[in-house]
């Protein structure tokens, strides 16, 4: 039972972290609870569908369907996160100023929620489909399945508790700084996702250039350990990054910074920030 709990918890962890960060990043926006719930619900339904068609997805594109699917899901999430940060750069200041009620921009405020709801949905879908397959496997094999299944369900609950922990941890940050912190977190989250997407494209055989390993820090921090896995999600830690992964990681951060500067420039021309 404990084994199942741990396996499921590890799968749920990544999605849980993302949901926690998104909730903190949307603090004070009206209707964010509804959007995030919608994202999670959509992700769960999507996960079940993906699990159901796992065979068909796997066999598509010369057997590279699963890798390409994961790469695309991650790629779309990266673009949504970029768009969100650009939006926040443009409107974040006024939002931080009047956190209690964002009456003036309710309609505007819905936009980053759509993007982030998509991000949440995709995260839940990706990790969730593996959980669904794992739990299905346990149920189908019958023997001592109930204890394992209970472990699995407890793992999901532990993951949800972790989401709450992330969220309330971030809420402890003074509201003046919270958007700065979440903006940085989202930037690194996006860079890590993009690097992960590169790895999937490599496994698919679509992108195999610059695939030499730049460094190996598995002796220092294994990506399989809990800390390694947390950092993998949070900042994209990879124990053996390829050249292409590193390039894409840095490129996403640079592009994100440029986009935000551009967005900021169009909103407040008088405040020329460095």
């Amino acid at each position, binding site marked *: 039972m404990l*084994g199942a709990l741990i*396996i499921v918890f590890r799968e749920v962890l990544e999605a849980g972290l993302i949901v926690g960060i998104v909730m903190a990043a949307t603090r004070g926006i009206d209707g964010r609870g509804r959007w995030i719930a919608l994202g999670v619900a959509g992700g769960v339904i999507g996960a079940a569908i993906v699990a159901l068609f*796992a*065979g068909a997805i*796997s*066999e598509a*594109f*010369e*057997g*590279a369907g*699963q*890798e*390409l*699917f994961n*790469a*695309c899901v991650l*790629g*779309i999430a990266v*673009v*949504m996160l*970029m*768009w969100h940060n*650009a*939006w926040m750069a443009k409107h974040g200041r006024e939002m931080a100023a009047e956190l209690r009620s964002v009456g003036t921009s309710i309609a505007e405020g819905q*936009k980053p929620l*759509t*993007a982030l709801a998509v991000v949440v949905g995709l995260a839940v879908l990706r990790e969730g*489909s*593996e959980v669904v*397959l*794992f739990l*299905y*496997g*346990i149920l*189908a*094999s019958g023997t001592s399945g109930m204890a394992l299944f209970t472990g699995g369900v407890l793992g999901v609950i532990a993951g949800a508790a972790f989401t709450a922990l992330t969220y309330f941890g971030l809420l402890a940050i003074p509201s003046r700084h919270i958007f700065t912190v979440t903006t940085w977190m989202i930037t690194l989250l996006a860079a890590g996702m993009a690097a992960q997407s590169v*790895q999937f494209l*490599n*496994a*698919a*055989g*679509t992108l*195999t250039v610059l*695939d*030499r*390993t730049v460094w190996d820090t*598995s002796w220092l921090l*294994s*990506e*399989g350990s809990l800390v390694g896995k947390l950092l993998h999600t949070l900042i994209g830690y990879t*124990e*053996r990054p390829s050249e292409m992964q590193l390039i894409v990681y840095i490129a996403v951060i640079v592009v994100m910074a440029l986009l935000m500067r551009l967005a900021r420039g169009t909103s407040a021309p008088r405040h020329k920030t460095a």
Partner: protein
Amino acid sequence: MRPFATALAVAVLLAAPCAYAPTFAADDLTVTIKDHKFTPSEIRIPANKRLSIVVINNDPTPEEFESLPMKIEKVIPGNSKALVRFGPIAPGRYEFIGEFNQATAKGVMIAE
């Protein structure tokens, strides 16, 4: 709504190359899963080469073929097989597992 539409368009454009995947000639490397165990559990592979291995899952339940050091992560549904592409990897011993049944599903690849 324009910027959001733009972001969506970019996302779709980025997704477009995903519809393309080159054809691969499958190598002779094969590993079979039965009763949540790998056969063979020790596989010799050439180092510093791009490789592919066919993983045949003869169990009715799904399995995730995974190796952190070799950067492999692939779900294989029950009673089906999948082609896993990986490498190049440096000479050495690399463990792989069936993540859903870690107690029994273990193996090692030796790159030389």
